[in-house]
C-alpha cells in the first residue's frame, strides 16, 4: 500500500508530510495499516466536524493507485472525527516518518 500522509495543525501548528510504502515497514505494521486504512473507515472519518474543538490534528491522506482498477483516493479529516483504530495506525506511520527524518538530521 502506497500513500501520502500529511499531518498538520495541533497546538504546534506545524505540518509534516511524506510518501510511504507500507511494504518497506515491518510486516505487522503494514498488515495493521492495510486493515485500518480502508475506504469505508476513512469515508466515515470525513464526517462533519465538531466546531468546538481546538488545536486538533488534521490529516490529509492519499492512497495511491496500485492496479489498473484503482484510482487515487483522497481523504481529509481531523482526529476528532476518525475512529481510534485509524488514528492509532496513523500515529505509528507518523512516527516512522519522524524517526527517518530525525536520523538524517
Amino acid at each position, binding site marked *: 500500500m502506497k500513500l501520502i500522509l500529511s499531518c498538520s495543525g*495541533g497546538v*504546534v501548528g506545524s*505540518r509534516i508530510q511524506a510518501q510511504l510504502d507500507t511494504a518497506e515497514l515491518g510486516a505487522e505494521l503494514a498488515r495493521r495499516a492495510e486493515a485500518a486504512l480502508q475506504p469505508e473507515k476513512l469515508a466515515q472519518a470525513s464526517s462533519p466536524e465538531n466546531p468546538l*474543538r*481546538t488545536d*486538533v490534528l488534521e490529516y490529509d491522506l492519499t492512497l495511491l493507485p496500485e492496479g489498473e482498477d484503482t484510482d487515487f483516493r483522497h481523504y481529509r479529516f481531523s482526529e476528532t472525527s476518525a475512529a481510534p483504530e485509524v488514528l492509532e495506525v496513523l*500515529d505509528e506511520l507518523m*512516527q516512522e516518518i519522524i524517526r527517518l527524518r530525525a536520523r538524517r538530521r
Partner: protein
Amino acid sequence: MGYAPRPMSYAHPRHCILPPHMIEAIRLRGDAGLRKMADGIEQDGQRFRAARCELMPPAATRRTQPVAARARIKPERKVYDAQQRRRLPGKLVRAEGDARSSDADVDRAYDGAGATFKLFLNVYQRHSLDGEGMPLVSSVHYGKSYNNAFWDGEQMVYGDGDGILFRSFTRSLSVIAHELSHGVVQFSGGLVYRDQSGALSESFADVFGVLTLQYRRKQAAHEADWLVGKGLLGPDVRGAALRSLKAPGTAYDDAVLGKDPQPFHMDDFVYTSSDNGGVHINSGIPNHAFYLLAQNLCGNAWERAGHIWYDTLQSIDNPHASFADWADRTLELARERFGAGSTEAIQTRRSWKLVGIAV
C-alpha cells in the same frame, strides 16, 4: 467582572434563509439540539435554500455576578489516564482532593489546571471555564508517542510526545493553560476557529497561557520570557519553545519541525488554507500587540493589559471578529476602564499601530 453564556433563544422554523455564517455560529454557540440541527442542515446540502427558520442571532454572553468569597471556591479537577489509546476519557486516576499520584503527568495536569483556575478566579473573578464552576477534566497519556495537546469542547487532552520532536505536553504550564483558555473562549461566546477570528482564539489562549505562568511565578512583564511551550521540544530540536510573544517567528528553526512561521506585523500576514487559515501562524500578530502593551505598561501583565484583553473577549460578542474588530474593542475598553487620555489607552493604540493595525 465575570460572564457566562446563556442558552440561545430561537423560534420555530419559518421563513428566512439561514446563511452559512449563522449555521457556524449555531454550531459554535448553540446547545446540543441546535448544533445537531445545524449539522443536519449542512449534511442535507440545503444550507442556502431549505433552512427556513426564523432564528434570533446567537445569544450574547451575559454578565454574572462577581464571584464573592473566592477563598472558599475550589476547582473540581479530574484527571484520567488514556493508557496510550486514542479513546477518551480513559481511567480516572486522580480526582479533586486526592493525594499526589505516582505519575508526574497526572500531577502536572492536575496542578496546571489548578494554576489556571486560580488566575481566572483571583484576577478576573471567573469561576472556572464557564463562569459557573464547570469541572476541569483532563486526560493524559493519550495515544502512543502522540505529539499534541488539544481542547475537545469538553475536556483537555495531552499526549506524551514521541521523545524526538516533543516531550510530554504536560511539561509546560503555558500549554496546559492555553488549552483551558480555549474553554474560556468557548464559554464567552466563542470565536469561529478559522482565519482571523480563529487566530484571535489562538492568541487569547497563548496570552492567558503565558499569563498563568507569570501569575504563578509572580513575574513582572519585563522578567518573563514570553514563551509558550518552553521545555516541550525534544533534545535534538533546534529551538526554545512552540511560540514567542516577544519575538514571533523565532521560537524554533529545525530540520524536521521546520521554522516557526509566525509573523509579528500585518505586512507579513500569511494567507493559507491549511491550519484553518493559519490560526497558529497569524496569532503572532495579536500576540505581539499584547506583549508590547504589557511591556510598555510595566508591572504585572495580568493586571492592566490582561484586564483589557479579558474584557474584550467578554464583550466583543462577534464570533467572526477580525483583528481590527478586536483592536477597536481593546481601545474602547482601555478608555472606559482607565480614561480616554490614560497611559493604558495611549499604549493600547500604539501597540496595535506597531503591528500594523490602525485604531
